[in-house]
């Protein structure tokens, strides 16, 4: 049988899914063991049990000075920035993307411009954002917006253009105005695409968030990681990294679920 036609069974599938995770975990445990055997005070690769202890402390115990549980405050601050950034980016991408996809005038005006803007490396303009907006929340949200909006606009504009022209013409023959076509034909068909576009943009959004927090913040997941880096607190860093990964994964999963729930017509097809 050809390799391309061989499929794993149910049990084998489950094992294969776990395999890379297990491999990484095992590699870490062995490496950590070797280092700790040589130097029990080693901070670079703390033992899994040590990370677990630290995680428990971070999630439940308050800060010695302020009494606040910093991890939750960090999470809240970061998620708020992320929500604002992704929200603003989604909304503007939806409006501009649909306009570019539907209106020849908007297409001529913005298409090349957005093509150029999307080539600007967002991290390179971060200093400008800090200078303009100060070191507060605005600059961080702005970096996320600047970073992901152009790509999202292009994506949604292309998705709008992909809607079969027959459908638009059909709506015209039913007497629909441009606005009705935008709201009743294009928007409902573009919303599921918006969700998949957001799912793709979440990765870069986290990147820009953590980059902005690393440079100037008083609270936030990225800020904490870069703060404790000075003390080589790998146990804290690893806890935060795993926590961020978990958050990102849950968001992605929730969006996928939401898309399936909200747009039942996208799934069923003969």
């Amino acid at each position, binding site marked *: 049988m050809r390799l391309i036609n061989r499929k794993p069974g149910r049990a084998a599938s489950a094992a294969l899914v776990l395999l890379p995770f297990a491999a990484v975990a095992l590699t870490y445990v062995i490496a950590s063991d070797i280092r700790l055997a040589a130097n029990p005070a080693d901070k670079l690769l703390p033992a899994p049990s040590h990370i677990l202890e630290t995680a428990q402390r971070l999630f439940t115990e308050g800060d010695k000075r302020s009494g606040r549980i910093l991890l939750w405050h960090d999470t809240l601050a970061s998620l708020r920035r992320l929500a604002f950034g992704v929200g603003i980016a989604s909304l503007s991408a939806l409006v501009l993307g649909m306009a570019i996809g539907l209106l020849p005038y908007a297409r001529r005006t913005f298409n090349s411009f957005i093509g150029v803007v999307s080539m600007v490396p967002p991290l390179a303009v971060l200093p400008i954002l800090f200078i303009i907006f100060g070191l507060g929340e605005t600059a961080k949200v702005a970096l996320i917006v600047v970073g992901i909006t152009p790509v999202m606009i292009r994506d949604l504009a292309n998705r709008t253009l992909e809607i079969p022209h*027959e*459908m638009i013409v*059909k709506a015209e023959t*039913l007497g*629909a105005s441009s*606005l009705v076509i935008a709201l*009743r034909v294009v928007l*409902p068909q573009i919303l599921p695409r918006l969700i998949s576009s957001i799912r793709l943009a979440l990765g870069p959004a986290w990147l820009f968030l953590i980059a902005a927090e690393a440079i100037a913040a008083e609270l936030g997941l990225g800020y904490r990681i870069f703060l404790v880096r000075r003390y080589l607190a790998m146990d804290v860093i690893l806890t935060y990294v795993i926590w961020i990964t978990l958050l990102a994964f849950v968001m992605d999963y929730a969006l996928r679920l939401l898309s399936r729930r909200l747009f039942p017509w996208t799934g*069923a097809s*003969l």
Partner: protein
Amino acid sequence: MSFVQVRNVFQTYGARPILERVNLDVDEGEFVSIVGASGCGKSTFLRLLLAQETPSRGAIRIDGNQPAEEPGRERGVVFQRYSVFPHMTVRENIVAGESFARPPGRFFGAARKAAQARADETLDRIGLSHVAGAYPATLSGGMQQRLAIGQALVARPRILLLDEPFGALDPGTRLHMHDFLMELRRQTGMTVFMVTHDLEEGFKLGDRVLVFDKTRWDPDYPDSYGATITYDFDARNNGIPFQTPTTPDLLEDPHVLSA
């Protein structure tokens, strides 16, 4: 004056002529089949009738109105694919035929209820009431086209344009769709233009069959001349002219013999 009037229509894409000197008069209630080899301009002609394109020269008028600049409610259309809205249920697709012409594009409250009741009547008529709540993607190709035709007719167009409407259907379903279309036509007396590459279908359904072809041909520059209507067959009574009955009441219904 005839109902649909095509006067000296030319269409060129860039330097390439597609159609030239097309003249046509169609009476209200006629079913016109349009056939021809691929690339002969029959689909272009349909797009011109639809006002999706405007002719480079000449004019097309319906009922003596000004030539249209863009598709509108005067013209209904059913394409081979993508003629229904995938994000609306079957019932909503029919309601859209009425509601799209109003500014918000949808009905509210009592108007909504009334429109849905009317839509259910339409669905009964086109035999889709049992799938009223389903999404088009779950329907078979024939049912989707039936829905598309029903939706187009709800908007009460002056002419109905069909662009190879049954081209993607299997032969059995196609025959059912022929019966369905003839039945609807008998009820509504609609003027229909249908582009098809199936000659048999064209002659079976049409009162007239128009053939598009090039009248001039330059072997060195095949693109230098456009196509026009080369034949205009009388296709009533299965396309056999000398059987045309003389009794006036039989002439009223051209389908007596073909039924």
